[in-house]
């Protein structure tokens, strides 16, 4: 046996997962990673190109952030692995001493599909910035992620829209399983790093089963549920989440990719998901929309001209403590800094939501918490969509 393969057999993933409490399917846990502990359920803000838009890492620390996302495709382009290696990885490069998770770059298969050709070898992209070609193979994804040095790396998956044809979904599902071996083989870290596999299979439970079986056998330190949040019906969405969390190993973290609506975070936490990421919180803030306990709030300068209340009366974020709707709405589309204040509010809102869910799990009061949150969010039980009721019922939570 050649030395490289012997090394692979000896991989001991630097991740400790401790479940501290449960409420039926929901769990409150601590993931211990190379850059510290992460309490779950957790929302992970996205710093695509090495920064959270408009928010400094110091502010992220003050908000209590324990783990951030970086995007392999973008970081591989700029600054590139030569620079990342020069700085001994992304943590040192960007000045963030807590945990980082990187996606595999596979998401670009969906978001940049017109620019991509997917083959068994990998995905060939055309750079949207300079038109150059970039071949992202499982090996290349691992090479970049090893340079980044993320605490959690994602294996390259063949991402497809959940509404694709069955043939395409099946192809993606099998290819993702084949690629995981190439990822493990290519993993060549200079520092402790973990590799999560991504369950694919669209909205077809039998395909998900094939994917689950293939990945779980690799005994990875954690697993992600991919291929959702692509425009599928909510009824289908939650059922696939529930299906996957039901079959994923209880003793390992589960990460639902690209999901960030507050109500989705609550429902899926109840269904047993531990980790979430999404750009929605910061993206929607840039368009003047914020989260409140009573649902979404869009800032409207004319209507809010005289409104001296904060964005959310119950919120203690730095934005709500200091500023009124009148002031913030007057700045909309005039001062970029105002969007950052809204981003901070939205990130804080999701951090608070996840902390409260965790506390409710630990104290055995998740049902009461979820009920109160849902009824306030939808303004009464009569407005709660069926999918929420059904999903929560699956998690042994009723709204009555």
């Amino acid at each position: 046996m050649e030395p490289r393969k012997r090394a692979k057999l000896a991989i001991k993933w630097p991740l400790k997962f401790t479940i501290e409490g449960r409420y039926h399917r929901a769990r409150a846990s601590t993931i211990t990673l190379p850059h510290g502990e992460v309490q779950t359920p957790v929302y992970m803000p996205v710093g695509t190109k090495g920064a959270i838009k408009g928010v400094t890492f110091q502010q992220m620390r003050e908000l209590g952030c324990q783990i951030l996302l970086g995007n392999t495709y973008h970081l591989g382009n700029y600054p590139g692995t030569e620079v990342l290696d020069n700085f001994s990885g992304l943590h040192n490069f960007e000045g963030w001493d807590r945990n980082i998770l990187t996606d595999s770059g596979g998401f670009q298969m969906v978001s940049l599909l017109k620019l991509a050709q997917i083959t068994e070898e990998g995905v060939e992209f055309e750079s949207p910035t300079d038109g150059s070609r970039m071949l992202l193979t499982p090996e290349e994804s691992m090479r970049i992620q090893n340079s980044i040095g993320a605490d959690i790396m994602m294996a390259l998956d063949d991402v497809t829209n959940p509404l694709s044809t069955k043939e395409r979904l099946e192809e993606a599902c099998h290819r993702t399983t084949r690629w995981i071996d190439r990822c493990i083989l290519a993993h060549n870290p200079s520092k402790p790093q973990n590799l999560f596999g991504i369950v694919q299979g669209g909205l077809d439970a039998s395909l998900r089963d094939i994917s689950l079986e293939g990945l779980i056998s690799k005994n990875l330190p954690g697993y992600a549920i991919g291929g959702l949040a692509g425009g599928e019906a909510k009824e289908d969405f939650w059922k696939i989440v529930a299906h996957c969390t039901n079959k994923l190993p209880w003793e390992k973290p589960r990460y639902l990719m690209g999901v960030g609506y507050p109500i989705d975070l609550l429902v899926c936490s109840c269904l047993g998901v531990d980790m979430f990421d999404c750009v929605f919180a910061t993206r929607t803030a840039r368009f003047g929309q914020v989260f409140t306990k009573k649902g979404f709030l869009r800032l409207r300068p004319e209507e809010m001209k005289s409104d001296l209340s904060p964005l959310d009366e119950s919120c203690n974020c730095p934005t709500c403590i200091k500023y009124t709707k009148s002031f913030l709405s007057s700045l909309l589309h005039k001062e970029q800094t105002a969007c950052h204040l809204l981003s901070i509010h939205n990130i804080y809102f999701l951090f608070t939501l996840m902390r409260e869910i965790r506390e409710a799990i630990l104290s055995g009061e998740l049902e009461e918490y979820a009920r109160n949150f849902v009824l306030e969010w939808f303004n009464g039980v009569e407005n709660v969509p069926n999918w929420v009721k059904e999903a929560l019922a699956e998690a042994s939570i009723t709204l009555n």
Partner: protein
Amino acid sequence: MDIFFYTGRGLPPFISNSSFKALQLALPHFYSNQEIFDKISLPEYVGIQDSLSYLTIRDIMNPRCHVLGGAKPDSITVGIPNNQKITIEEYMSFVNKSKVDIAPSLSEEASLSCGNHRSKRSAKNAIVMLDSCLELKSPALKLLGNIQGGKDMESREFCAKEMKKRCVDGFVIGGIDLEESGAQLRRVVGAVYNGLSGDSRMIVLSGPGRPLDIVYAAQHGITFFESCWPFILAEKGKALDLPLVNFEDAENIEDMDFYEPELDLNDEKFAMQKGALVENCECLTCKQHHRGYIYHLLRVKEMGGNTLLAIHNSFVMKKLVEKLAKAKEEGKLGSVYADFVNKYCMGSFSTIN
């Protein structure tokens, strides 16, 4: 001695969690919604009630925000939002109601590039308008005599002398535009210095607030400085390269123009560079981030790069003014400008090659 950092609408550019001790607020952005200040003060409204608030009549960073006067010294017209005419009564009503800490008397802004007629008229009218403002001011407000006179040094000195006789809380050298810096500005400072001759009340220098101008003005009795320069540099991807160690003695060099040391972080040479923007700088940016990272953020057009530069630049300016205040306390302001120029602005000092 302190800096009034620029804000247009209440937030400094790029920085969403500033803790500046003194901030500008530009009247044109709040004037049309002034009914709200019946319920809440302007500093509270913009969340700076713990800082010193200073009203400006124009928004210096908005090129459309001219402040024009006429032959009669009873009103001005502000360019934004829509050439708003404001009388003295309306202005003082707004100022009193808004409860800002400090405001200038109403005056047109005669820049250093305006003609002789307007320069002279602005000085005379500013004095008349100051008298009217004084009659209408609330006791809590610190009202500053707005020294005008454009580029006419006699008018500037005359205006300063006349205002010195009034019961004002201080003075502001008005009419300094964004691009105005250097020798002509120093002559204006000199003229006002002569006019006020040793007055101990606060004196504010309007304008961009560049380091050299601030150092020169401090040597000539100015105690407060408007400054938007840290943010202008940050927008361009530049960092102030002032390590601010002790100044050295030098000859008088007031009439020369000098280079203010800056690092242009857009330069590819920074891509691989580790370490702080300025060695030993204690700002958050320098303590936590590499030059290479800031280059990267600018390269991919992430505003975080401008934010980190704004944090650094404003920190350096704060430190500069602290140094000046200390020098003043120790009676060492006499040669501070020459020292500063010699130390930093002769091209001999550079941390980066």
